[in-house]
């Protein structure tokens, strides 16, 4: 499978329709790489003309900014915007809600103006347009699913329906957790918490959320964020349920169910 970088496309005098912003988790984290691969596979199957930045991509600066390091954030933003503007990027799709939020909401006032789409919305559109067709007996047809809202997709950007519509396409039972949509409970990774230990307390946040997810009795916990995915998977392992309950990204669910 061939995945072009922007540099390669430029060299061939080609312009992609969209840039796939992979994000640091999607690039480096072994679990999140699977989400990246699943999404890239979908794009390839549908022959969508896209490119990645490859080695030229860099952290958007989200964890730096949210931990309080505005200097580092501005450095990263400056460099990324230089590259994106240099390639004349118009539309970006990303599988990470944190990258999505930064690119969409925080880069414009720094000079980076792009149409930014999260893969939940992107997949929803492809399904609606009939471009993605799912198998009748896909691997999840007998499994009920519970969707975990990512804070940076939900409360931060009001995207609640798109991921649910993607899951509805699987035609399996969707069970909501007690705290869902705008009341959804954080997985514990946001605000640069992913990169440090929890502060002193009596429980880890991801355990609290995992318990709630397990209460639904769903066999699949669906997420749309690589960090939520890691946090929930850690929670499931902590509860020794990894053989009964799967934590999967919506892209993985779709990729495995596509014709």
């Amino acid at each position, binding site marked *: *499978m061939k995945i072009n*970088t922007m540099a390669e496309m430029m060299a061939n005098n080609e312009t992609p329709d969209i840039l796939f912003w*992979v994000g*640091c988790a*999607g*690039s*480096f*984290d072994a679990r999140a*790489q699977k989400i990246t*691969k699943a999404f*890239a596979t979908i794009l390839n199957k549908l022959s969508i003309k896209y490119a*990645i930045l*490859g*080695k030229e*991509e*860099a*952290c958007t*600066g989200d*964890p*730096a900014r*949210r*931990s*309080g*390091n*505005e*200097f*580092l954030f*501005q*450095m990263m933003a*400056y460099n990324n915007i230089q590259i994106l503007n240099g390639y004349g990027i118009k539309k970006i799709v990303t599988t990470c809600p944190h990258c999505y*939020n930064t690119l*969409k*909401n*925080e880069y414009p*006032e*720094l000079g980076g103006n792009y149409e930014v789409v999260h893969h939940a919305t992107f997949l929803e559109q492809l399904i609606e347009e009939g471009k993605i067709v799912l198998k009748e007996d896909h691997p999840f047809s007998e499994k009920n699913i519970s969707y975990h809202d990512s*804070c*940076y997709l939900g*409360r*931060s*950007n009001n995207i609640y329906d798109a991921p649910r519509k993607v899951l509805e396409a699987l035609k399996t039972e969707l069970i909501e957790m007690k705290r869902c949509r*705008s*009341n959804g*409970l*954080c997985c514990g990774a*946001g*605000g*640069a*918490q992913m*990169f*440090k*230990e929890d*502060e*002193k*307390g*009596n429980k*880890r*946040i991801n*355990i*609290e959320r995992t318990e709630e997810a397990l209460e639904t009795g769903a066999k699949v916990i669906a997420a749309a964020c690589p960090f939520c995915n890691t946090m929930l998977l850690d929670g499931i392992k902590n509860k020794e349920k990894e053989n009964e309950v799967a934590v999967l990204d919506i892209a993985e669910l779709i990729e495995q169910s596509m014709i």
Partner: protein
Amino acid sequence: MQLLPQIAFAILTVIATYLFAKKASEIRRNILLGRDEKISDNAPQRWRNLLLLALGQKKMFKNPLVALMHLIVYGGFIIINIEVLEIVLDGLFGTHRLFAPILGNGYLWLINSFELLAVLVIIVCISFLIRRNIIKLKRFASNDLNGWPRSDANYILFTEIILMLLFLKMNAIDTLLQSRDFGHYAQNITGNFLFSQYYHPILQHFSSESLMVFERICWWMHIAGIYAFLNYLPYSKHLHIILAFPNAYYARLEPQGKMKNMPEIQNEVLYAMQPELAPTETTGENAKKFGAKDIYDLSWKNLLDAYSCTECGRCTTACPANITGKKLSPRLIMMKTRDRAEEVGKSLNKNFTTINKERTLLHDYITAEELRACTTCNACVEACPVSISPVDIIMQLRRYLIMEESNAPQEWNSMFSSIENNFAPWKLSADTRDNWIKDL
């Protein structure tokens, strides 16, 4: 002699209004100690928020029963103010039921609806007292409210009940004396009111003269109680009755996930990368500090938030850090910010020139441990019925910790150096960023 009560009432009114105005201007001054921030865009949306969030109490309806109960107390407060207007005018002009002849039949209807509200307010206030003190809802039993804040909430509920009982009793005596054709009460025959008439059996055995004294006592205590309430407001969480309105108007309209930009740092980075753009003359702005250490560094909107907080604790109940036993409580962030603003305000009252700098909001009130527990999930912002953002304050204090004090946990420092060196928050070579392609 006839004029004596009128003069006494006029003096009471002037004193109550003066004291309230004085305290209100102090609060305004304290809020404006905050940094300047221009909030003036999109006025139509802001008015909509004011109507929906403040007047319509939209966020309260996440729990419809509680929303209805709150609406009754609030409606009681607002609508009974019309009755207070009559009471004030009666007091000043020495009249009795000034509006009765003007409104004719409508007056009975009006007072009946006030009485209905009064009865509903009493029922709701009792339920609220039960929720706070007997059922002990978690967010009310929380240590956040230890001491004055817990009493504050109870005082107000008790006061409301007493005020409503006085109002009903006053009406009951009035209508009883009307039926006895006694004194000036007989001037305006209104007939019995919806609820207060049930007081009559208890009052029947008293002489008309002593009833008249009772009625005057109820009248004076009712209006004095309202004036006392007015002056209590600025010291209490109940200030939200007023400040919820401006706070809804000035609530941020941008997506919750967007953090406020720091143009001074944006420019510094720009000039470092493109020195040709840097201004040749350096301005004196270098002394400016990054992030917030004290209330002066926060925006005035953050301080308005603090004064608007009603300490209901919906934010803290929704906070993932607090739920899992961390020190952070968004409600306490707001309460401490207000406490600090009040402390600074008090020292300004004593001495107009010195600004209290011995203590600061950061460290003396809010600790680094609390700040570091925040996941920026915005659940507190979403939960707040009066459009407060604790996250905005937390982020500004975090910026100070990192950029002015270099106060970061070791893991964050390695995350920073990884981003600087490998352009990713992990210690992995940037050259391997696209290695995932190889497996496809």
